[in-house]
């Protein structure tokens, strides 16, 4: 009976499921035994295009180091609200970035988020600042997709 199931599964899946792996030529893969962690790793560097971004990054780093890294992982979003602010200022300017941040903070306080945002691998909601720049170029990700962030 066990062999019947094996044969059934193999016949059912064989032509469709396994041929798509080979639609690109591949070579030997490097094996990696190590285990990856799912924790967030902050980007503490000060790389900035201008003085304004540097100041924002400085305060963000200080906030992360003295407060955010100590009060737990409270933000359901990725990037977190503070990281969102840094990204928003980088992509636009300090004023527009601040407005984007306050809008994000309001959305964060809304407890009914399920079904509105796509999920990231760690289970957080994926909500990048690029969606809110009002540039008109929105790369929409459907809610049921799992994205890779970082």
């Amino acid at each position, binding site marked *: 009976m066990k062999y019947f199931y094996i044969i059934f599964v193999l016949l059912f899946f064989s032509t469709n499921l396994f041929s798509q792996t080979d639609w690109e030529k*591949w070579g030997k893969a490097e094996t990696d035994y190590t*285990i990856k962690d799912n*924790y967030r790793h902050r980007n503490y560097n000060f790389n900035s295009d201008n003085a304004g971004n540097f100041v924002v990054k400085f305060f963000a780093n200080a906030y992360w180091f003295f407060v955010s890294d100590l009060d737990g992982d409270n933000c359901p979003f990725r990037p977190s609200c503070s990281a969102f602010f840094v990204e928003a200022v980088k992509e636009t300017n300090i004023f527009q970035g601040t407005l984007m941040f306050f809008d994000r903070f309001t959305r964060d306080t809304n407890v009914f988020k399920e079904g509105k945002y796509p999920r990231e691998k760690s289970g957080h909601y994926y909500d990048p600042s690029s969606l809110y720049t009002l540039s008109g170029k929105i790369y929409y990700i459907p809610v049921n997709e799992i994205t890779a962030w970082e």
Partner: protein
Amino acid sequence: MIRIILWKEMISLNKYLLIFVLLIGNISFAQDYLKQQFDFAKKLFDEEDYYDAITEFKRLQFFDTSNVYISSSDELIAQSYKNGGKYSDAIHYFTLAELNATNNDDIFKLKIEIVRVNILRRTTDNALQLLDDLEKEKRWTDKIGEINYWKGWSYIFADEWDKAAEEFSKISPDYELKLLCEKTNEEKYSVTLAKIMSAFLPGSGQFYTGNYLSGFLSLGWCALWGYVSVNAFVEQRVFDGLAVANFLWFRFYRGNLENAEKFAVEKNLQISNESLKFLQDDYKGEKP
């Protein structure tokens, strides 16, 4: 006259012999072509040109109508997929090879290959289930050592070093991998202990795992907001006291517990990964 008759008979007999011999020759030539094809595909496999090796094995299978090479070619296709990191395909072809295997030794070898791919794919539950099934079957009682060996590896990849040590100890009390697993397990931090320490004294769990700065900051924040909150209650500013206690003190206290757990888990991962790196790069025995 008799000589002529005999001579004619001899010629006709030789004729049939010639046809017979040439026929045998033809059949052996066909087998030669398939053998050539198998050798060519095997050469590509040995040269680590896995994609093309699979193509040539598939060509062999297509023309091998008698299925002489079916099991061996399926096995090598599976090995190619395994070496290319395509584990689902590897399991598929190992299963096919197992179905066409002709003797118990081959069947066992292929079942173990499926276990090994499951280990690499980190579907260790599947691997352990398959090994449990093998252990229960009476025909594999002489292979119990190998079954325990791969159980140990499954537990290693599942990051359960104590159970891995237990499995390896069944092979031998001073088995190399058993000692490694025990050492890894002993070096690990207790996540539960870290959390309990931080529950009683904020920051102490972080001190336990060597994150002194984080522990000190957690202690400082909890102490500060605790003082402010208590002070508010003492001065009968109940609302202020509740607000500070809930939004500040409790937030940092909960964060302190999360960090105690997170740092212990991260440190344990580091310890596990050191052992895994050793096994990957320096261990000379059989690996998944």
